[in-house]
């Protein structure tokens, strides 16, 4: 067990260490209010990162998530304010559009054989461009109270979006760890040819993964719009890098075939803990960025070397 999950073990240790050190620097750090608030702040990145774990474990990558988030945010405004759709319907429509954007990524990757990195580099520009073109720099504001609660309110003592996040976490963990779809994802990531020759539904699975990635980005957009109560075409800029950082920090192999939701969750927590704790400890934003970079490299270094030693 430990041998198979060396990385998660190393990561858990690093996270604990970080929490310990940072809690000595600031008494607010471990307060319930702060922790819940951190849950609220990390939801969007976390939702996308959960699905990105599937994408990367299957040997792919999706750089367009931030752009899909921006496009979804803009379209929510357009559907609701521009077309006058009832808000619940507009939200549904946005989720559909996000899924279609993801599906489009999947189609050019699966059916036209484009490498995922390039295909989604292209749609990164395309979807952001559509967001900018459609919005013409206009923002939609004045969202109803009930909608704002999705991003700013609480339910049973927890921020609303944290419930969504917990549900997504449980679902993603169960699917990747315990179902045949999860196994299929790993098999595709480890050897797509062998998976195909074993009669696994390779194309359908890949299409589904990218579609769900688009869906998650759209869902994140809804939550983000609700949290900040406006729409902007630059929403989600750079999201892909935050997400990929969390996922690879969590031990998912960028070459596919390996990775767990537990690892991703730990990666997300570690990044959030560092951002928040260092800020509370009086370290400025740019110093925090440096430290996250160092931690990313150092964690992978330690876990690679540990594994290498275990094997030798």
């Amino acid at each position, binding site marked *: 067990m430990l041998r198979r999950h060396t990385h998660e073990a190393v990561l858990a240790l690093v996270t604990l260490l970080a929490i310990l050190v940072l809690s000595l620097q600031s008494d607010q750090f471990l307060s319930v209010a702060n922790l819940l608030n951190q849950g609220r702040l990390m939801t969007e990145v976390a939702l996308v990162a959960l699905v990105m774990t599937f994408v990367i474990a299957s040997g792919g990558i999706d750089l367009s998530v931030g752009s899909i988030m921006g496009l979804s945010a803009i379209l929510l405004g357009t559907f609701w304010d521009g077309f006058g759709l009832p808000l619940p319907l507009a939200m549904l429509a946005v989720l559909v559009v996000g899924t279609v954007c993801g599906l489009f990524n999947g189609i050019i990757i699966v059916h036209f054989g484009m490498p995922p990195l390039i295909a989604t580099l292209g749609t990164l520009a395309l979807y952001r461009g559509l967001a900018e073109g459609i919005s013409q720099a206009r*923002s939609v504001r004045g969202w109803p109270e009930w909608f704002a609660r999705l991003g700013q309110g609480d339910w049973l003592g927890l921020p609303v979006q944290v419930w969504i996040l917990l549900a997504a976490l449980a679902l993603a963990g169960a699917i990747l760890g315990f179902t045949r779809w999860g196994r299929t994802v790993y098999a595709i990531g480890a050897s797509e040819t062998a998976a195909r020759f074993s009669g696994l539904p390779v194309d359908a699975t890949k299409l589904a993964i990218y579609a769900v990635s688009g869906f998650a980005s759209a869902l994140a957009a809804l939550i983000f719009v609700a949290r900040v109560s406006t729409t*902007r075409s*630059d929403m989600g800029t750079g999201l892909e890098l935050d997400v990929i950082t969390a996922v690879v920090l969590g031990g998912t192999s960028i070459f596919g075939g390996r990775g767990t939701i537990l690892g991703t969750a730990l990666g997300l927590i570690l990044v959030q803990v560092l951002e928040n704790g260092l800020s509370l400890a009086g370290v400025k934003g740019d110093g925090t960025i440096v430290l996250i970079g160092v931690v990313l490299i150092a964690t992978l270094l330690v876990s690679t070397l540990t594994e290498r030693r275990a094997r030798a």
Partner: protein
Amino acid sequence: AWTGGDDQPTSPLACDASTVAPDAGSYNGGTVTGAQPSDTLRVVDVPKLVGIGYFNATSAGVAEAAAELDGVEATTDGPAQANIDDQITLIDNYITSGVGGILYAANDPVAIAPVLRKALEAGIHVVGYDSDAEPDARQWFVNPAQFNGVAKTLMDELAQQIGADGSFAIVTSTFTTPNQARWIAEMDAYQAKCYPEMEWLETVEAQEDNILSFNQAMTLINKYGEDMDGLVGMTSVATPAAAEAVTQADLCGEVSVMGLATPNAIRPYIKSGCMEDAVLWNPVDMGYAALHVLKAAVDGTLEPGAAEVEAGRLGTLQIINGSEVLLGAPTVFNAENVDDFDF
């Protein structure tokens, strides 16, 4: 043609020099609840982004005021890129860490509002500068200059250089940047009213990136050639880049460069004669004033309904539109005075 302005109502000033006294209005800012008085006031200053000359200057002003005021500690911490989410997260962390006051320049007026309201509810004093948030999300806002005032100054200066029938193009940051969009909208309105013969060729985006600004300005020069009389930069990055483009194209004197800019960045072009002048308020003063206003609000010397506020070496500043502290008229930098400034 679409000029890059926003679609909110405009209020162009009169074409002549007559000025209307701005309206003090009734207080429309937010209120702090449960503020705890303490010996030292810890203040964090959160600009739109760090790493550009303009916000370095505001941050210097904040530091200057902090040194002057008793019991105030101020730090500047901002996102590395003008990103709304990073700015919000940053402010949120400072709320948790228990600062006494927050100064901000908003990347988005609406997006930043919830977190600022949260700060007010946590007993933290909030004052904005440069770019505002929704009024009820902060107490006061230090307004560097009114949008229509900036627009008038810019257009008047431009008209004087290229003539009332000249043609010009604009290099801005992005169409989504609120201040720039507002200025452009006001300029458009003012031009339609006072210089109907002028031709507004087009507006291009160049982020806050000086190389891109330079390339965009160069392309405009190449596209319009002698048909373009003036280039206006809407950011402190774009204006010197435009001046550089005109210099490199050997068109000094033929294409006039105008715009918002810090004196240090345009000094070489004013010295070389390629640029006559540029417009800006003093960002150092703005940061300086913002901290003074915050301190006054904390001390209770600035109460809702006040008509003016004391701001150290700047003297008395006027309050307009309910909760905005007016910094004063923008400064025009030219060959005579450019050496008097250093920011």
